[in-house]
């Protein structure tokens, strides 16, 4: 039996995996850094928590995650033409001692079995709309392109300095980076606009990680983003996590398999619901595995972490994937 890591590599290289990579099993995420510890992070049920970058967050009960609050008084960048006057850059001066607890977490992971993984969220696009409010942000791409370029360069430079410390201390084998680029039926911005504004930032960021010891880049966008796949490949993304069925995953595997792997296919909305049943989960997992095959594909809930909103759903999906491994391998 291959290790989780070997099995993952066989899957993404089109070799001979002996079973499905079961959801997030190959990533062992180090859930913490001094930066994450320093700034408040909204917790389930909390309201109006001001986090890093001055963004206010609320996480209502029953929600899968927190929400940036964008009442007029809480929008951070109130005027994109003067964005520098509003931005509050988080501190990145951390010592070896500050990093020590997280280094210890990374050291406990068996790197032969799993990838020591650094997690970064939110991403560059998300940061833009968290700071500006989404409609203001999307219109600013048209109305204030120069300022948006400046803001994105600023955010990317900050992240590169953060990446430097992550690589120095955690020495991650993989990076799991969130940045939602679309709704379930479309990307938020056109591929052309994406190439102009967002792609260059990720070429720098992912390029830095890859040249500093990171082997695998896993990017989360639980959305439609099929039209961005060639750009994901250019950026250095190895695994697109969160790929939803609206993307026609079998077609993407056929077209791009070998250059990128697709992780998802079990849309959270279809099974992670109040009326879920093991039967529903089994049907979705079977359908997904049969449609997508067993190479360049990792069956997974589209959710951006190894959790589900409703207790038991994530585990039920894992159990069904194990069953499908016996059938498909």
């Amino acid at each position: 039996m291959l290790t989780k890591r070997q099995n993952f590599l066989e899957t993404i290289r089109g070799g001979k995996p002996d079973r499905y990579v079961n959801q997030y099993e190959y990533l062992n995420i180090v859930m913490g850094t001094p930066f994450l510890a320093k700034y408040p992070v909204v917790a389930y049920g909390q309201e109006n928590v001001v986090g890093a970058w001055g963004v206010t967050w609320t996480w209502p009960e029953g929600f899968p995650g927190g929400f940036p609050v964008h009442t007029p008084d809480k929008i951070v960048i109130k005027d994109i033409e003067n964005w520098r006057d509003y931005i509050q850059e988080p501190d990145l001066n951390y010592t070896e001692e500050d990093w020590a607890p997280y280094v210890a977490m990374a050291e406990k992971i068996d790197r032969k079995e799993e990838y020591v993984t650094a997690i970064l969220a939110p991403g560059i696009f998300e940061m833009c709309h968290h700071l500006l409010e989404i409609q203001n942000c999307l219109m600013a791409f048209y109305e204030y392109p120069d300022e948006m370029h400046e803001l994105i360069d600023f955010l990317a430079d900050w992240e590169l300095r953060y990446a430097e410390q992550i690589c120095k201390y955690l020495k991650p084998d993989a990076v799991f980076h969130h940045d939602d680029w679309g709704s379930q039926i479309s990307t938020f911005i056109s591929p052309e606009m994406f190439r102009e504004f967002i792609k260059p930032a990720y070429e720098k960021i992912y390029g830095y990680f890859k040249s500093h010891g990171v082997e695998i880049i896993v990017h989360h966008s639980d959305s439609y983003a099929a039209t961005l796949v060639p750009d994901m490949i250019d950026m250095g993304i190895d695994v697109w996590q969160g790929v939803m069925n609206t993307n026609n995953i079998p077609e993407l595997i056929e077209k791009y398999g070998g250059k990128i792997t697709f992780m998802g296919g079990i849309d959270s909305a279809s099974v992670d619901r109040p009326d879920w049943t093991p039967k529903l989960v089994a049907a979705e997992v079977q359908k997904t595995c049969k449609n997508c095959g067993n190479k360049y594909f990792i069956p997974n809930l589209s959710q951006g972490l190894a959790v589900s909103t409703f207790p038991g759903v994530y585990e039920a999906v894992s159990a069904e994937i194990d069953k499908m491994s016996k059938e498909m391998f």
Partner: protein
Amino acid sequence: MSMEKVNDLVTRGKAKLVPAAVQEALDEGCEAGALLDTMIAAMDVVGENFKNGTIFVPEMLIAAKAMKKGVEVLKPHLASGASGALGKVIIGTVAGDLHDIGKNLVAMMIESAGFEVIDLGVDVPIENFLRTYEENPDTKIIACSALLTTTMPALQQTVAAINEASWRSKVKVMVGGAPITQEFADTIGADAYTPDAASAAKKAKELAA
């Protein structure tokens, strides 16, 4: 030519140029109502292009903004209420749900189609939908959205409350949002479900006709 220019500028979302183009068209003797119609037609095209995937959310937002700027210039020249001639639509994201952009796009497209929109925002309690209708009994449509599987029950409860109201037969109920399907809409007793903002505007016109 002036009408075509206004249509083209709205389609391309040129919010800074539309007011002057509308004024120019009025100065040349174009009818205010016809100018409004040409902007509505432009937004129809924008909606179709969005639905077909040839344009994206930013293009739709700037087009709606351009139309709004044009309507501001037109308003003094229009008969009272002409810009919302198709009737009132109450819209909101249901209780417990904070998602707003999808609901906002629907609101914009419905407004651009010629309705007067009463936007209740997000996290709207059932009683707010009911009270707003009772304060605006000439409302043609109540549109509710839910973007999470966890808030689908709130959508169901909202529609159930509307269905029990004594005035239910006088209003149509539309629902939408990422996890919502036609099947779910039928189950909860809504009159219509649409998967995107352009279809919502089109459906609203059908329902209000």
